[in-house]
């Protein structure tokens, strides 16, 4: 099912003319025949949920935007993509920059926004150039700028580079960073819909979320909602990596069985010769890790599907989350302890340091895991890790704290034996 990546392999599709020949920007023409609220309603009907990780209903988020403040309103596209295992936004923007611009135009029209920013992680400098070129092209063809296609609607889009900080993917840290500050997540409430960029009402959406809107405008919310299962409607980009034969970005209709996604040649293509599945991290480094048997089936024995609900089946005991769609496969040669230590190091390095549980706790977690991995662990350390994770989880300013705690808690929950083995082979103790 190709809604987003449709035409992505057409040569030159990153150029305006080719994109236009393939039906590009049609939704901008169509939108001008619609009332802004019709688009909001269509998005609500579509069941589209935020693709940045949290999976919040996009239509709902849009309807929370304060339309009465009298202040300017902003739309900010989150292209900071920093969640380990996730590379779908990058892949998409490299191939279809105009589709993102188109999504921003129709979404801005729906929200009554006249200035939008795309916050791109600074490392992706060629994408920043590509997007700026695409914006210039769209502008020269009248699809952007003042009085778009002769209508009363005007919009400017600017690209803003990040500079190396995973936390700036968190929407309020992103807004701070866009204001030229340190990327400190804000204390909520107020939420961006009320007081976002420069204190003005703001919607922050992921690249993939906004890229889905043109299709919804063209085909209607119902058509989008017809794809997928239950509350997981539409398609999702999954970036698959790790120990698989065919790493890459795949667009799937939500509801595809996990097993099929891993083993089918249309997707991951299975594991390398002679290897077996050991564990799956289904939605980026922040979601709980699952052992093989819980990856492809739920604890109740049902096939596990690629939907928000099915992946969460079993809650934190035996489930996980769809998250950002960063699909990391670990085979039987992978060491869970080493991977867990690696992630702990990542979160320690990326904590903004603003609130004490996360600032102090992430460092502690890393140090203990580093000891265990390097043969200096003690049996008590395993429960200690669980305790430290509890001291962080749910107590922090932003969800980063949970993201740092969950991978560790879940790794120990499902692979305790491996941790025990590590400490029992320990060379010495501190």
């Amino acid at each position, binding site marked *: 099912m190709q809604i987003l990546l449709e035409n992505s392999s057409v040569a030159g599709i990153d150029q305006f003319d080719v994109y236009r020949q393939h039906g590009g920007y049609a939704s901008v023409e169509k939108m001008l025949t619609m009332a802004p609220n019709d688009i909001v309603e269509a998005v609500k009907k579509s069941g589209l949920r935020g693709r940045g990780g949290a999976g919040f209903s996009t239509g709902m988020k849009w309807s929370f935007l304060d339309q009465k403040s009298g202040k300017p309103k902003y739309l900010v596209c989150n292209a900071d993509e920093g969640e*380990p*295992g*996730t590379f779908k936004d990058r*892949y998409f923007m490299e191939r279809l920059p105009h589709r993102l611009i188109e999504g921003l135009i129709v979404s801005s029209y729906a929200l009554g926004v006249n200035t939008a920013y795309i916050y791109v992680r600074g490392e992706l400098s060629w994408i920043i150039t590509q997007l700026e070129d695409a914006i210039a092209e769209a502008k020269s063809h009248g699809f952007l700028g003042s009085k778009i296609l002769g209508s009363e609607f005007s919009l400017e889009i600017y690209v803003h*580079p990040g500079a*190396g900080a995973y936390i700036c993917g968190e929407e309020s840290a992103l807004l701070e960073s866009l204001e*030229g500050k340190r990327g400190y997540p804000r204390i909520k409430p107020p939420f961006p819909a009320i007081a976002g960029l*420069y204190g003005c009402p703001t919607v922050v959406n992921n690249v993939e979320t906004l890229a889905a809107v043109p299709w919804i405008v063209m085909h209607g919310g119902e058509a989008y909602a017809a794809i997928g299962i239950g509350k997981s409607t539409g398609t999702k980009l999954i970036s698959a990596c790790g120990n698989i034969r065919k790493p890459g970005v795949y667009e799937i209709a939500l509801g595809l069985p996990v097993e099929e996604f891993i083993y089918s040649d249309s997707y991951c293509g299975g594991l390398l010769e002679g290897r077996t599945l050991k564990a799956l991290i289904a939605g980026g*480094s922040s979601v709980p890790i699952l052992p093989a048997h819980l990856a492809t089936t739920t604890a109740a024995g049902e096939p596990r599907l690629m939907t928000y609900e099915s992946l969460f089946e079993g809650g934190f005991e035996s489930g996980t989350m769809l998250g950002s769609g*960063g699909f990391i496969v670990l085979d039987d040669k992978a060491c869970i302890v080493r991977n867990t230590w690696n992630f702990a190091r990542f979160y320690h390095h990326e904590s903004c340091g603003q609130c004490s549980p996360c600032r102090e706790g992430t460092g502690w977690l890393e140090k203990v895991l580093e000891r265990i991995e390097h043969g200096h662990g003690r049996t008590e350390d395993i429960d200690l890790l669980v305790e430290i994770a509890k001291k962080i989880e749910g107590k922090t300013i932003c969800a980063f704290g949970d993201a740092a705690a969950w991978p560790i808690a879940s790794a120990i929950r499902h692979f305790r034996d491996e941790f025990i083995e590590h400490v029992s082979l320990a060379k010495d103790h501190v």
Partner: protein
Amino acid sequence: MPKFSLALLDKVQQIIRRYPEGKQKSALLPILHLAQQEFGGWLSPETMDYVASLLGLVPIEVYEVATFYTMFNMTPTGKFVFQICHTGPCCLVGSEKIISYIETKLGIKAGETTPDGLFTLKRVECLASCGTAPVMQLGKKYVEHLTEEKIDSLIEELRTHADFIRK
């Protein structure tokens, strides 16, 4: 005191105009990128003070921001900075091995610069390139699917065309 050329000062003004009036602090990250590129690949206190003066900020505001983001170098680096991703997914497919290979080959540890000032090796976090791992960021490009052979020829190429990336 470092100073941008007239053409770049024009660019600075252009960047400032992306943001509403009075919100020129928003231009800080893009202008720091520009300054780092222009003034030797790192942000000296003088460079940061200059950027502060361009945006009407007090210098500490710039220091605070510059030291928060890992893309800004607070000390001089080698001419070519190998920034290798060492986050989980890359490590599953051999990123640690590649790092040790480069360490041995260049005779430096991660975080160090070769004595000839040509290469700096850095470990960085996920670059959104986990499907084409192992990967390094080199200037404005990524080099993906790294292998030992690829590293060999890359180093060779950079040594011969020492101007390759800076352009």
